[in-house]
């Protein structure tokens, strides 16, 4: 799943994936890495524990382009041996893994920084929208100002 010489790539899919399996193959693919950082986003049981399910809508085509662009920017800014982004869409229930990013570098600083960068950009610049369903009805999740503000760091 690579678009660069570096390992990793971008995947947008409806089906579940295992962060474990992805991490193993990513580590195996990242030759020369000493540090691998992963981030997994999980559906929290918010709404006072009344969340029944979540539905993630996305913009096919633009989503892949946006994620590829964010990944390419990370590869330009840091000396990485790999960077991967996987994001699901469609229906999800609490406890399920929504998405994952993984970064690999020689040293830990770069791997950590690049993973946070990927997450910050993905949150506010990739066309995904979450809708939460509880017994009372459904509601679109509002964007958080602090997510937009986080981009100022980079």
């Amino acid at each position, binding site marked *: 799943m690579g678009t660069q010489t570096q390992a990793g790539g971008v995947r947008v899919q409806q089906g579940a994936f295992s962060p474990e399996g992805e991490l193993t193959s990513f580590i195996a693919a990242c030759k020369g890495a000493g540090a691998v950082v992963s981030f997994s986003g999980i559906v929290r049981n918010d709404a006072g524990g009344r969340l029944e399910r979540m539905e993630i809508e996305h913009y096919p085509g633009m989503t892949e382009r946006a994620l590829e662009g964010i990944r390419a920017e990370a590869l330009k800014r840091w000396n990485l041996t790999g960077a991967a982004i996987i994001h699901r869409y469609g229906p999800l229930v609490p406890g399920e893994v929504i998405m994952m990013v993984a970064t690999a570098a020689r040293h830990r600083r770069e791997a950590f920084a690049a993973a946070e960068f990927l997450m910050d950009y993905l949150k506010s610049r*990739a066309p*995904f929208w*979450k809708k939460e369903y509880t017994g009372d009805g459904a509601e*679109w*999740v*509002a*964007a958080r100002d602090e997510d937009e503000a986080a981009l100022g760091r980079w």
Partner: protein
Amino acid sequence: MIEVLYFAWVRERIGIPRETVETEAATVAGLVDELRARAPRYAAAFADVSALRVALDQELADFGASLEGVREVAFFPPMTGG
């Protein structure tokens, strides 16, 4: 002829996910004005454009941006991925 896409609550308010629009608008803002005039559900969806984002040919853009050469315009609320 331009393809217009709607996502999330914009899609729900307008009632359709996409449509082909005949427009002479020079900018996104001009297109929004035309759409608002179509029906109350459009006016409701575009009531506050500061709550909206726009992408031109799948790249984020401003509401002042030119539509010249653009084939696909998408309107949606701020993104909430991750």
